[in-house]
């Protein structure tokens, strides 16, 4: 164990959240819950990223009164990356949900295992 586990509690929490999301995405057989897991996983990564930009005692990177000094603002890069990331995860969520609807109209279940069982029974 390294020295910074408790200082980095935010990152630790996001790591745990990441794993919870990951587990949900991997293990839940219900598609909707899988998708929620995916969203949790993505949010965890964004939290992880946002923690990196944070510097104690500084304010958001919006220039106030034309003061442009590094001493004053937090790091803007992670925020920018997270913004991009959020768009990606919304798109993916929409796509996954529409896939879910399509699968449901066809197989009348949200359970992925059951779907694959049905598919194999079809034997096509």
């Amino acid at each position, binding site marked *: 164990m390294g020295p910074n586990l408790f200082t980095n*509690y935010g990152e630790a929490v996001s790591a745990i959240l990441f794993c919870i999301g990951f587990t949900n995405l991997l293990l839940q057989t219900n598609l909707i819950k899988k998708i929620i897991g995916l969203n949790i996983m993505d949010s965890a990564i964004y*939290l992880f990223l946002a923690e990196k930009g944070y510097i104690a005692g500084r304010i*958001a990177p919006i220039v106030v009164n034309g003061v442009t000094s590094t001493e004053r603002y937090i790091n803007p890069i992670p925020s920018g990356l997270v*913004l991009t990331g959020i768009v990606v995860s919304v798109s993916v969520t929409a796509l996954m949900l529409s896939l879910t609807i399509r699968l449901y109209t066809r197989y009348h279940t949200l359970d992925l295992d059951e779907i694959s069982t049905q598919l194999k029974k079809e034997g096509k």
Partner: protein
Amino acid sequence: MTAFQIILMGLLIVCAVSVSFSKNLLNAILIYMSFSLVMSMLWICLESPDLAITEAAVGAGITSVLFFVTLKKIHAIDASEPDTKEEKENE
């Protein structure tokens, strides 16, 4: 501020875990919605208002709406084909 952050993070983990174990899909979605809200609060604490706005609009707003409409659609599909619904209920 730190204590507040820690509470929020604790809430995040609670939300995430309870999503995994909730049996009802609607509950799961609602919990996820609150997860997003907590997340956006956390981002305010982390001095990232851009993210907070976006997360509030997207995570709590759009994504949840999409989840709801999916759920509704699924119930509609079930209702439109009564046979399958009965089967489901029998189970």
